[in-house]
């Protein structure tokens, strides 16, 4: 038992560490409540731009070297806080977003983030009425979280209880909640004392106005979500892959599902200030989609998604602190999308380029097989014999010259393509040219041609005899028949050909000849 506990020591250490981290950060959040308005990056900006607010700056200016140095060296405490907060937000939203993507709920985050609007507005109005000061961020976010959570439940349970499709339930809950939000916003406009600029930041996002209290909240929520994703990694993976199996296996799949989606709601809430409710979905989904082009296992995909999310967030904040007029949220999203385009193109696993290379290689292999098979057909036609099973005449085959045109006649290729394949066959040493129009097979060439002729004919006969396939549909390149048909079936088909050899009947191709 002790050995058992010891083996899992790193794991317990991780739990302990994360517990300490959560405790530490949340304590800091509580302590930080005293001085809420020490806006982080805007301090630097304020000194540069003589008090003008970042958003109100009128001209575009390249940052001078002094400023670049200042941002890159993270000299200011608040710069460090904002950078670390948003980078962690990027990492964690990439990771949780992977589960969301694989749970096939990509659009849920959009419904949730839009549904935060009525909650924000209600909280704002309530605060205005109670204290006359509506921009207490934590209360606003709690309000947003409540309506976001309700929207999440609606998205999940509407299809279950009403039978409507899930895309319809997404659309319904998004528009319903957002509609309420818009109405409430117009109510806020009518309040005499209200200054709704704080709300505006939550809709469009503005990382530059984050205070260190805000960032501490982001850090706390992110650490909670990160720890949850690490701890429940295998449960979440199972849920996303096969929820029915998870349930039958004794996992409380529904509760787990709600738990995972609650993490999404939390991330969406803290992401509000950074990127705004319109763009949160991109923060969750884009890194995950990009990561899928680089890896074929869950762990790698989540890791890479976190990496891409974190890098995008970092670059976004960097850009917006160098160019104060650029909105950080949009830059983060655009950077992530850039990563997506790069991944789509160059991704090692399913990127366009790697797929194109694989396809080209496969095409070349298939073409060579077809070429050699047709060559074999020609050889047989010339010899008036069936010889793909016998071995004793292989030596003779190597000495028989073949007229290239006869092979070309059997394929529906253009002259140019045929010449290309022929050239490749020579350079890959399957055939040797005798003169311009004739060639002979090499030893390897004979073996490969014979193998593919055999495979091809066995396949055709197998499909016709056993799979009720119309003979005219059989002609396509096929892999080894032994992978599909049982050995005794292969032997049976081979016997059919053996009998044909014995009765000296030239085997006709079992499908009608394809005309050029």
């Amino acid at each position, binding site marked *: 038992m002790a050995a058992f506990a010891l083996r899992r020591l790193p794991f317990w250490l991780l739990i302990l560490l994360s517990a300490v981290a959560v405790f530490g950060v949340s304590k800091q959040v509580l302590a930080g409540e005293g001085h809420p308005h020490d806006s982080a990056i805007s301090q630097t900006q304020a000194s540069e731009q003589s008090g003008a607010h970042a958003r109100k700056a009128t001209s575009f200016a390249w940052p001078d070297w002094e400023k670049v140095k200042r941002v890159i060296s993270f000299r200011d405490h608040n710069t460090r806080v904002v950078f670390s907060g948003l980078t962690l937000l990027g990492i964690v939203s990439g990771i949780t977003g992977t589960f969301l993507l694989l749970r096939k709920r990509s659009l849920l985050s959009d419904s949730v983030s839009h549904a935060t609007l009525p909650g924000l507005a209600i909280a704002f109005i309530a605060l205005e009425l109670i204290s006359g000061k509506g921009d207490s961020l934590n209360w606003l976010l709690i309000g947003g979280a409540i309506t976001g959570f309700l929207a999440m439940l609606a998205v999940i349970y509407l299809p279950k209880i009403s039978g409507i499709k899930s895309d319809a339930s997404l659309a319904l809950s998004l528009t319903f909640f957002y509609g309420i939000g818009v109405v409430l916003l117009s109510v806020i406009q009518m309040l005499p004392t209200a200054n709704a600029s704080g709300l505006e930041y939550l809709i469009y996002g503005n990382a530059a106005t984050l205070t260190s209290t805000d960032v501490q909240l982001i850090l706390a929520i992110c650490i909670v979500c990160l720890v949850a994703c690490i701890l429940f990694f*295998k449960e979440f993976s199972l849920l996303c*892959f096969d929820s029915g199996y998870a349930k039958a*296996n004794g996992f409380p799949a529904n509760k787990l599902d709600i738990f995972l989606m609650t993490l999404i709601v939390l991330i969406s809430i803290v992401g509000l200030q950074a990127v705004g409710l319109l763009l949160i979905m991109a923060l969750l989904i884009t890194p995950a989609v990009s990561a899928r082009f680089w890896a074929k296992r869950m762990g790698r995909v989540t890791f890479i998604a976190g990496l891409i999310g974190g890098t995008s967030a970092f670059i976004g904040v960097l850009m917006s602190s160098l160019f104060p007029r650029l909105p950080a949220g949009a830059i983060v999203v655009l950077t992530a999308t850039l990563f997506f385009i790069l991944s789509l193109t160059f991704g090692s696993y399913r990127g366009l380029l790697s797929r194109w290379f694989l396809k080209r290689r496969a095409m070349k292999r298939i073409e060579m097989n077809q070429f050699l098979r047709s060559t074999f057909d020609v050889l047989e036609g010339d010899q008036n014999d069936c010889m793909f099973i016998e071995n004793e005449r292989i030596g003779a085959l190597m000495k028989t010259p073949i007229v290239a045109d006869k092979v070309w006649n059997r394929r529906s290729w253009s002259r140019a393509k045929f010449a290309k394949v022929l050239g490749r066959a020579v350079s890959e040493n399957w055939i040797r040219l005798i003169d311009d129009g004739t060639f002979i097979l090499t030893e390897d060439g004979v073996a490969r041609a014979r193998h593919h002729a055999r495979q091809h004919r066995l396949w055709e006969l197998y499909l016709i005899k056993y799979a009720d396939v119309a003979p005219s549909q059989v002609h396509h390149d096929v892999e080894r028949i032994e992978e599909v048909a049982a050995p005794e079936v292969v032997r049976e088909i081979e016997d059919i050909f053996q009998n044909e050899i014995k009765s000296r009947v030239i085997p006709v191709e079992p499908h009608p000849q394809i005309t050029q």
Partner: protein
Amino acid sequence: MATVPFPQDDSCPLSVKDLTVAYERKPVVWDVEFEAVPSSMTAIIGPNGAGKSTLLKAVLGLIPKASGRTLFFGKDLKRASSRVAYVPQRESVDWNYPVTALDVVTMGLYRKIGWCLPVLSSHKRKAQTALEKMEMLAYADRQISELSGGQQQRVFLARALVQDADLYILDEPFAGIDATTEKAIIQILQELRSAGKTVVCVHHDLTTVVEYFENVLLLNLRKVASGPVDEVFTLENLKKTYGGKLTLLDRVAQSLASANN
């Protein structure tokens, strides 16, 4: 109608009583009563839309029941879930999911590994053994979309095997797979039965029922009949189950005749 005493003992791997499942107002499975015989293989057969898969899903609690009760080894599924292994239909999952064959098989151990605890190398070895049993060890590191249909089914069965359960519930394991895989799977299932395990399996190929199974449950919304194959799997019962689809029945008649000879 005479009441059948509902068994409470834990020797019966699966007992279903009065099970009714309804989508909206229309019942899909109606008043099914059924007991699986320990260490035997039972086929659930019936025409398309007869509610075979629905029955299994309701039994496993994956879809809500309108009424009825199911007991596994005399207990609720929650308390007996470690003794039950489920092989869902192959189409029920996304085969593009980023996992390897070995990862999928390891999922069968997650319950045993326990909440939040990591997968250890000893678990991986267990999963490899299960893959080897299904002759799939060479494909352990393949992403699951790179596998053929038959290979995917083998992976699913390996995931159930690794659970080391006492009752195996399979939903159409032979649908859309090649003959070699079908033989391999049936061989493994027969081995399980010889080891005292119980197998319940939704099956669609009437011609192989006699060869593969010893018990059968004929289902068409209601239970038509259930029991040993040689008593229940008769032309008369099949006609009741399948109605007028005679071409199908002719083939079964032939297979029945050849089995009797």
